[in-house]
């Protein structure tokens, strides 16, 4: 199997021939470029399949694995248009506190409309910022040259899920994405794991910020613990298992990773005191040694002797990051994302081996997946249905749309069932198609496709000239769309239906818009 693929890859990039002789899918450099662009990127932009094929698919993959070396000034410039990035965590915390105070005041004044949307200027600004954060993710995914990097940012955002609408996470999430997820998305897993454990967004989301040793008391006045947002009015009084459980079940070992309820409790004890400063003081990570349980603990049979402080959680995180169950669990999810909803064992094995060799360097794990036989196997080509984000971004890329800072496209992603940063449960959006493919969502995709192609999505204007020329010849039109948007995978049925639909439309500009809308809303474009 392996030799077969090595052979195939050598053909694709015209490297010196190696052993093996069997036929392998995909059959042409264009096909493999399309496959790589569908999986490592958010789909091809007009002309990109040809560019990647001409330069060599493996060379393009290698370049994507080193995102720092890819010039990305265009998207950096676009990102600067999002003024939410000019505000740090402290600024957003203050804005949030101000909105909350105003709301409380309205409630106290007996304003019965206090539960209705708050249309005060400051509340509007808060909502605009929230919408910007979501739209920024779409813009980066659509326009960045570091496509694989953006895919991985989305992957880790779900793996280390936080919920944007939970209390303080309203102002902690933007910082979490910028300074916890993004800097580590293609580094070492251990660094990412430690960064998320220390992140105020995660500490708040999974309640660890207020997990303390039973009976512990702060040296400073209790009021120091009281929060602006009134989520908690009383001082915490004991351990909270929430983060500990999800750390083991979701972030590292996996639910079958061989831990017990006892392990969960002792992990929670190890993390007692990992907390957050008050929002007015910037809401940074803060370790409270007074809150830390300094007793003996045991996790997965390993002793954590008494007398330690913050260091023992770091020791635990390193141990978890390097645990075979973690390697397997995370590798499996990566294979699910990049290869097949039902990840082949061989892919997982290759990824785990690379993880062991590289001590959890994510780039090496990814390289092993992309160079493995399963990634290129015929059974896995177009075997996945795009997620809502993948569909919307790939559609925008297909028609060369340049989304602006208005949240139009982010709203479409939400309508398709997966609003960004708003998966309430800590497991993040699932990697399996049955989570997002259903009759309602399929109709919504068709609607979004037609609207995008017809220019009815202000803020994301399609440049159809770069897809296909305006022509009265339906065969030429359809051929252009097939090549430009579907990489030549359009079915005979789709060609027939589009031809029939445009046959009585006299305005060729309208005919093209309808044809593009049908192609993007049609069945072939839903797959990757």
């Amino acid at each position, binding site marked *: 199997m392996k030799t077969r693929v090595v052979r195939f890859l050598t053909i694709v990039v015209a490297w010196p021939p190696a052993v093996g002789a069997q036929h392998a899918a995909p059959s042409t450099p264009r096909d493999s470029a399309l496959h790589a662009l569908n999986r490592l990127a958010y789909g091809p932009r007009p002309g990109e399949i040809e560019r990647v094929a001409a330069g060599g698919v493996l060379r393009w993959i290698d370049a994507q694995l080193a995102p720092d070396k890819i010039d990305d000034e265009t998207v950096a410039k676009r990102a600067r248009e999002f003024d939410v990035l000019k505000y740090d965590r402290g600024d957003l915390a203050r804005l949030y506190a101000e909105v909350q105070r105003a709301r409380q005041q309205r409630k106290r004044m007996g304003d019965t409309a206090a539960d209705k949307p708050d249309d005060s200027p400051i509340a509007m600004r808060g909502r605009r910022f929230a919408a910007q954060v979501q739209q920024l993710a779409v813009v980066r995914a659509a326009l960045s040259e570091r496509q694989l990097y953006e895919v991985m940012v989305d992957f880790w955002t779900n793996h280390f899920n936080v919920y944007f609408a939970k209390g303080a996470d309203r102002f902690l999430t933007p910082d979490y994405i910028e300074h916890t997820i993004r800097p580590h998305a293609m580094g070492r897993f251990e660094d990412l794991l430690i960064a998320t454990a220390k992140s105020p967004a995660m500490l708040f989301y999974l309640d660890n910020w207020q997990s303390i040793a039973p009976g512990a008391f702060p040296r400073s006045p209790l009021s120091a613990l009281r929060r602006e947002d009134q989520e908690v009015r009383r001082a915490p009084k004991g351990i909270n298992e929430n983060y500990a459980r999800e750390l083991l*079940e979701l972030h590292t070992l996996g639910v079958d990773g061989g831990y017990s309820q006892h392990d969960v409790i002792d992990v929670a004890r190890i993390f007692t005191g990992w907390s957050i400063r008050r929002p007015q003081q910037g809401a940074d990570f803060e370790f409270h040694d007074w809150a830390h349980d300094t007793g003996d603990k045991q996790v997965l049979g390993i002793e954590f002797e008494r007398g330690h402080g913050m260091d023992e959680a770091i020791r635990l995180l390193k141990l978890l990051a390097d645990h075979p169950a973690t390697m397997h669990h995370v590798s499996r999810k990566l294979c699910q994302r990049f290869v097949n909803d039902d990840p082949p064992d061989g892919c997982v094995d290759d990824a785990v081996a690379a993880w062991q060799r590289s001590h959890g360097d994510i780039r090496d794990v990814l390289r092993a997946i992309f160079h493995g036989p399963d990634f290129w196997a015929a059974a896995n080509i177009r075997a996945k249905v795009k997620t809502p984000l993948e569909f919307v971004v790939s559609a925008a890329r297909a028609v060369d749309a340049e989304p602006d800072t208005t949240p139009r496209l982010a709203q479409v992603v939400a309508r398709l069932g997966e609003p960004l940063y708003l998966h309430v*449960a800590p497991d993040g959006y699932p990697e399996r198609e049955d989570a997002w493919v259903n009759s*309602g969502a*399929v109709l919504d995709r068709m609607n979004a496709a*037609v609207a995008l192609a017809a220019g009815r999505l202000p803020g994301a204007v399609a440049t159809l000239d770069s897809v296909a020329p305006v022509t009265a010849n339906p065969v030429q039109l359809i051929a252009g769309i097939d090549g430009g948007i579907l990489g030549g995978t359009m*079915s005979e*049925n789709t060609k027939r*239906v589009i031809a*029939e639909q445009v046959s009585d439309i006299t305005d060729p500009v309208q005919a093209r818009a309808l044809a593009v809308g049908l192609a993007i809303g049609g069945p072939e474009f839903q797959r990757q």
Partner: protein
Amino acid sequence: MSISRRVFVKSGGVALFSLGMDPLFLARAALGSYKPLPPVAACCRPVLVCLFQRGAVDGLNMIVPHGDPLYYRERPRIAVPQSDVVDLDGYFGLHPRLAALKPLWDSKRLAAIHAIGSPDATRSHFDAQDYMESGTPGVKATPDGWLNRYCQHDREHQDTPFRAVAFGPELPRILAGTAPSLAIADLQAFGLRAPQAAARDRLTRAFEELYAGSATGLLSASSQEAFEAVQTLKRVDPTQYQPANGADYPRGKLGKAMLEIAQLIKADVGLQVAFADVTGWDTHVNQGATEGQLAARLAELGQTLTAFAQDLGEKLDDVVVLTMSEFGRTVRENGNSGTDHGHATAMLLLGGPVNGGRVLGAWPGLDPASRFEGRDVAVTTDFRDLFAEVLARHLGARDLSAIFPGFTPDPARFPGAIRG
């Protein structure tokens, strides 16, 4: 499925002709796999509405064991004071924010069941929800949900796309499977959008042909269900709906979902199994007692169920609403005036067929010695016994062991939720 669909294509052509549609329309319709409206469903079909409280509701503060001093001893900050509880039977009572449901209790159309849950000990939301929806506790590999398996094994109602509907953007695990089921985020906006009706119909047909011809796998099944549903909804016209009897649904997703369920029930489109879910029950911190976070969620739930019952009026005689939640919460409050993940919880049953006015299930008590792992309410009713009873005695399901593989449903263990 395929046979009845072919029959419909034939009769549908006739119906269109009689409506005087233009020939071009007919030509296009004939090219595609046009599907007409299903026949008007008979009245009085039983309907099951499942309502999932995601996040693990605190059963002890929903159906309060106010007659047990241990309840008050274990929850000094979050117990509902006896003076606030709406007493039901001298021992249990409703949370005060569920008071709107008391008349339904008094008229024997509301029951509760306590100490119900999973035989699996997991305290993971995801596992426990998964098991409650797959109907196979402890077995992760089950590909489909138990509501879907019911639909697979009872094939009487296959002539309507609205037989099984989940109200929300995602089709939930409980309805995942090979039997057709719909996910509807917004009944009014369901379907293709276009400025004029003619353009909308044309787009609908075009996409229907695209998917009928080239879609594979789940995409194919989902799109097929979608287009059947679009046809039916055209007839129902949800934009004109007014709740009956002054029913006032709370704003928010839950109220909207239940309003739409009531609407489809009354429209007789063949709805048999409906599903909605509501989040916000994971009250680790500051859950509150008479007032507070949990109280607010319960108020929304109580008002929604009350509005639903009012809106349905006599139709409620054919309907059972069943609430469920993946597990309960710790008997003792935690350090943050909240509760952590526990084991057994309470569920509610509402509707004409319900054996109402009683708290069902064997109550294990709150004594630490009888608790699960010393901390949680023990499970005395396997949730499958309740679900199986509702399927068998309300919907008339016959093959219960196929719906709950690995489990032998025994009528002797049914908790007695449905009137005989």
